């Protein structure tokens, strides 16, 4: 068993050194494609943060002052429910201060200054309103009426951010996903090609191995390890790149901390998750691609 392992690692390393140029090409391509995959993840997450407030067709949010009493909140709720022609009453949702605080963690992820000032006690609670009416003027008129109610702090409209942001995010999502899929295919193709070249360089050895009774798996495993290593190195490089990009972006965003941009930041926990995914995709794509390539050139 140990003999087999040491054989596999020795052969992998030897082949790695033999094909430096092709290996570099495969590694760099997989790094770039994985970087794009990772960016797609992060961009989606960032936009999702920005749009958390407006999830579920919410078009209007009525923010309630943190010092409002139960009575005032009841008045606001009754006023909202008295408009069933405009508002979908069944979807009306009240987020108390604890829930609003949880939501703010995402919303102000890139703005630790603001986040520090917020507590579950001083944060405004909110009514999320899903309208029935498609008439945006009507919704706006209704919203303006609430501004004058006691206990209302502010009224926000989805329209103000939502349309532009969602369209931009949609576009970026499709573009980056498409590019990363294409590049990932190129990367697998390059890994495939390095493995084919490596196998061609060693065709005499493979012939002898088959004649003396080496199993196909025994022959294949060093090549799969080589592909796996290429994918994994690509993954590591892409993680470094992604980490650099994300830090630079987070720093840049910190300068705009009182705007909506502050939500466009990804927290470390999610970042680690994405890095883990990238390493996984790189390793699996490399191993599977080279495994298939090795099988194709191993006719019994």
């Amino acid at each position, binding site marked *: 068993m140990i003999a087999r392992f040491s054989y596999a690692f020795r052969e992998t390393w030897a082949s790695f050194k033999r094909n430096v140029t092709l290996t570099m090409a495969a590694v760099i391509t997989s790094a770039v494609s994985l970087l794009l995959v990772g960016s797609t993840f992060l961009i989606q997450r960032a936009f999702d943060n920005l749009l958390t407030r407006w999830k579920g067709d919410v078009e209007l949010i009525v923010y309630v002052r943190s010092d409002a009493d139960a009575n005032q909140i009841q008045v606001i709720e009754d006023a909202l429910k008295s408009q069933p022609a405009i508002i979908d009453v069944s979807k009306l949702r009240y987020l108390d201060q604890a829930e609003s605080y949880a939501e703010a963690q995402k919303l102000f992820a890139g703005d630790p200054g603001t986040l520090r000032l917020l507590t579950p006690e001083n944060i405004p609670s909110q009514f999320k309103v899903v309208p029935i009416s498609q008439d945006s003027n009507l919704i706006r008129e209704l919203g303006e009426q609430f501004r004058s109610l006691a206990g209302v702090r502010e009224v926000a409209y989805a329209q103000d951010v939502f349309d532009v942001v969602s369209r931009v995010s949609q576009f970026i999502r499709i573009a980056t996903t498409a590019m990363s899929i294409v590049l990932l295919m190129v990367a697998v193709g390059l890994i495939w090609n390095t493995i084919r070249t490596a196998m061609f360089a060693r065709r005499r050895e493979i012939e*002898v191995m088959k*004649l*003396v009774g080496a199993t*196909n798996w*025994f022959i294949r495993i060093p090549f799969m390890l080589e592909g796996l290593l290429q994918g994994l190195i690509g993954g590591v490089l892409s993680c470094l790149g992604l980490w650099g990009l994300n830090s630079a972006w987070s720093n840049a965003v910190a300068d705009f901390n009182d705007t909506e941009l502050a939500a466009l930041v990804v927290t470390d926990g999610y970042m680690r998750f994405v890095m883990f995914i990238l390493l996984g995709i790189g390793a699996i794509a490399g191993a599977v691609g080279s495994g298939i390539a090795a099988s194709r050139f191993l006719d019994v």
Partner: protein
Amino acid sequence: MIRLENVTKTYGTDIPAVRDASFEIAKGEFVFMVGPSGSGKSTLLRLMNRQEQPERGAVWVAGKNINEMSDSKVPYLRRNIGNIFQDYKLLLNKTVFENVAFALEVIGRPKHVIRQQVPAVLDLVGLSDKEDRFPHQLSGGEQQRVSIARAFVNRPLILLADEPTGNLDPATGEGIMRLLDRINNTGTTVVMATHDQRIVNMMRRRVVQLDRGVIVRDQERGVYD
């Protein structure tokens, strides 16, 4: 040990390389396959370790129909069959020792077994003093001895030799034949394809003669023609 039953093998759509061949080789026998180039000798050898599959008929080796064997079992069949070739098929970037060790390494034999068996077999073929040489530092006859060592190191039941003396001068070829004879005396079945009349006549073993894919003669203690 080896039995062919009405075996026919065709390459492409041309005339068959082997047509309706049937014969049996007993354990420990030494058999020459003779005939001119293209008469089907090599094809017969390739059918015996499943490098080729016949269109019709069956090949039995050590009691198993190897044509019905699953692909995953073929490596284990081949561990019982050594192969020698006219062009030796040595790995040029490996030393004599490494070339022989390679055959054990790739079937997962542990290091201590390799360290013990490789010197023993190199001693048998008379190359103990050259185990650190590379193939290009050896004569043709010595290279063929390395390839015999590699084929025999795993103590196979059968040795298939395809024109092993084809690239060697007569004296060197005789040396190789003496070595194959010694290996045969250990109980290993040897099947050798050749068109070297002198060697066949010298050895006086069983001769199976082929002509355009058909067995035309099968004779105990035969001569070339």
